[in-house]
């Protein structure tokens, strides 16, 4: 098997969670890559919280419209069937139970699945943007992140960084593992190809529940 870079492993695995007809919001960074791996034969509506459903790939050279961008301000296309709306509607979709799934980056996730992803006090205070609404409101929340940052575990017993929401996330996907939270407890659900349970445990601060058999990610 050819070696996949960590971001591709994460994005490909998360793309397997997509289902036909879903409304999905992808955050900036690794989450954006998920759109490149939509399984064939299904149609997914991607939302950009700046006011678009039906977000498509970046336009061909010279075909961009300066009033059509994603939430990062980058030019995008709108697919057939797309719709545009104001920010109140956009967040009504997010909080009102209409958004089937959101995929977000993460700084830390605690043992109960609570996410911190919007600030590092004293270092990085960009503002929460839509992250708090997305985690509070989406039907399903998936975190896409590298397992560690500069060697330090990001799946921790307790978040030292300010939480994004108290509502626990549903799934964390890293280049090493898939972590789920049945019964509110971080549980090793899958390991990445070529990664052992021991390697995941060693890179994780939170004490993971480990079932007798841990399947491997099918990429």
């Amino acid at each position: 098997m050819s070696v996949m870079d960590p971001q591709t492993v994460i994005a490909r695995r998360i793309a397997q969670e997509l289902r036909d007809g879903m409304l999905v919001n992808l955050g900036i960074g690794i989450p954006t890559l998920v759109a490149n791996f939509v399984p064939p034969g299904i149609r997914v509506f991607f939302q950009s919280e700046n006011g678009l459903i039906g977000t498509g790939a970046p336009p061909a050279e010279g075909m961009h419209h300066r009033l059509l961008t994603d939430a990062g301000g980058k030019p995008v296309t709108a697919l057939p069937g797309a719709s545009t709306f104001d920010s109140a509607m956009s967040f009504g979709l997010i909080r009102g139970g209409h958004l089937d799934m959101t995929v977000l980056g993460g700084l830390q996730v605690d043992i109960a699945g609570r996410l911190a992803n919007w600030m590092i006090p004293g270092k990085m205070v960009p503002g929460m943007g839509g992250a708090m609404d997305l985690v509070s409101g989406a039907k399903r929340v998936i975190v896409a992140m590298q397992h560690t940052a500069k060697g330090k575990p990001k799946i921790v017993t307790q978040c030292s960084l300010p939480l994004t929401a108290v509502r626990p996330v549903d799934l964390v996907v890293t280049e090493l593992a898939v972590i789920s939270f049945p019964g509110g407890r971080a549980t090793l659900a899958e390991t990445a190809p070529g990664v052992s349970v021991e390697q995941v445990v060693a890179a994780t601060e939170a004490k993971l529940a480990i079932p007798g058999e841990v399947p491997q990610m099918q990429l």
Partner: protein
Amino acid sequence: MKTLSLKEAVGLIPDGASVMIGGFMGVGTPERLVDELVRQGRRNLTVIANDNALPGIGIGKLVAAGAMKKTIASHIGLNPDTQKKMLSGELDVELVPQGTLIERIRAGGFGLGGVLTPTGVGTVVEKGKQRIEVEGKPYLLETALRADFALVQAFLADYVGNLYYALTARNFNPVIAMAADTVIVEAEHIVPTGVITPDHVVTPAPVVDYVVSQ
């Protein structure tokens, strides 16, 4: 609705005013109005907007020019000028979750005292706010926001002031148009009345005070 020159329209806005400005990372921001605020050397503005854009773009120009004393926004991470001025104490920054910010503005424009939202419960956002349980679920009471002025960017404005927006430039614009004492519109195109059909009017003319002449 009255038509004003750019200079006259911005002349209505005094130093120290609170100003809502449309746009999301500069897309949908009335750039001519922003440029004129900078040119006229406005100071001590409180700017309520989704973000502070980037240096050289939209609200980023007001930050760089030192026109603002405070901003209420959901995201400032892509503007290093705002970060620098926030840390030095030159600019007061109030961060609000995006969905909460737009609902606070909507409440202000729709005659509501505030909204109850689950967003922010149990986080630092809850600090100083009232938590209210409704049918067993916790919500935060987020109070309404209004401003002295709304600076709105529309794609089309007709002769009476009906507005129509384009693509992702709509964002905060139609919502802030409801929530300010004086609404000033910069339109990409002025069109004859009727070009925007009744079903396609997003902001009805009576809420618009001024349209800036081309």
